[in-house]
């Protein structure tokens, strides 16, 4: 295969795992460096900006909590698009993408829940309430765990791909429920203050570190996701090579 044919010219070229691996090798160092840079700036802003007059120092928890919560939903959306890729276009990398995103999504959802608790205790006076927002995010966390368990339970990726894709799409109904839960129901969790049609309602002093941290978390997500996809492609290659070797060994013993 000549070096030239590995170039990615259109989106469908990504369907070739070898091309994807070549692209991943090229962009991962840059993506990781960019994420580190944004994290450095974000963390610096998080601890140098002023505290809130009501929340005090605890406002700094928001700079981790809000990006984690955004990512928990974005990751599931990436998985839902991948599930469509599996079912509609039969894109060979779609299942790899959905499968490798699940543990990352679960981690960020866990972070959103835990940091939310650490904010809730001093500010609301409770670690947890079963209001619509908290409950729906907890359900999202359970869905991630369920999908990870499903992927592990089925050895053959060709079989698990369609099942988990259907399950991911069914579970996607939870994402708008999470987003709009604070408007549809009377929740202890506050309504949206950044992603609003009429613009953010929080002070630039808090918005700046929040947005920088959000970019940092998003870059981290894509770095991890691409690296995890690369791992999954390698894993599948190892499996198929071992199968190939076993077949070969069988043939040799049969024909002396």
């Amino acid at each position, binding site marked *: 295969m000549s070096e030239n044919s590995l170039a990615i010219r259109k989106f469908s070229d990504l369907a070739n795992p*070898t091309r994807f691996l070549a692209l991943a090798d090229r962009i991962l160092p840059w993506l990781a460096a960019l994420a580190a840079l944004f994290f450095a700036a974000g963390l610096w802003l998080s601890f140098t900006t002023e505290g809130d007059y009501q929340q005090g120092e605890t406002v700094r928890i928001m700079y981790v909590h809000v990006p984690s919560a955004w990512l928990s939903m974005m990751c599931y959306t990436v998985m839902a698009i991948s599930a469509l890729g599996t079912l509609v276009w039969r894109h060979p990398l779609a299942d790899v993408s959905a499968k490798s995103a699940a543990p990352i999504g679960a*981690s960020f959802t866990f972070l959103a829940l835990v940091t939310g608790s650490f904010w809730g205790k001093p500010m609301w006076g409770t670690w947890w309430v079963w209001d619509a927002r908290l409950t729906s995010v907890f359900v999202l966390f359970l869905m991630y765990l369920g999908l990870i368990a499903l992927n592990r339970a089925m050895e053959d990726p060709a079989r698990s791909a369609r099942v988990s894709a259907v399950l991911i799409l069914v579970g996607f109904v939870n994402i708008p429920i999470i987003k709009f839960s604070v408007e549809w129901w009377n929740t202890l969790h506050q309504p949206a203050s950044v992603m609003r049609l009429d613009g953010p309602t929080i002070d630039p002093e808090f918005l700046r570190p929040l947005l920088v941290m959000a970019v940092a978390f998003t870059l981290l997500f894509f770095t*991890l996701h691409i690296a995890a996809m690369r791992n999954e492609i390698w894993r599948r290659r190892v499996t198929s090579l071992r199968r190939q070797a076993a077949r070969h060994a069988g043939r040799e013993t049969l024909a002396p």
Partner: protein
Amino acid sequence: MMSHAAYVIASYAVAAVTVAALVAWVVGDGRARQRELRALEAAGIRRRSAEAPSGEGK
């Protein structure tokens, strides 16, 4: 009753540990898979597509 700073530190600590674990898992998994691929290569087992350039071996 913990001070506010304790809650902030706890949040950032949990975040740091979670992200570190995630990065360690992805990097470790990648290294282990590459080791396996190198071992297979050393044993003379190659992907069919590496010999015949058309198509991706399943």
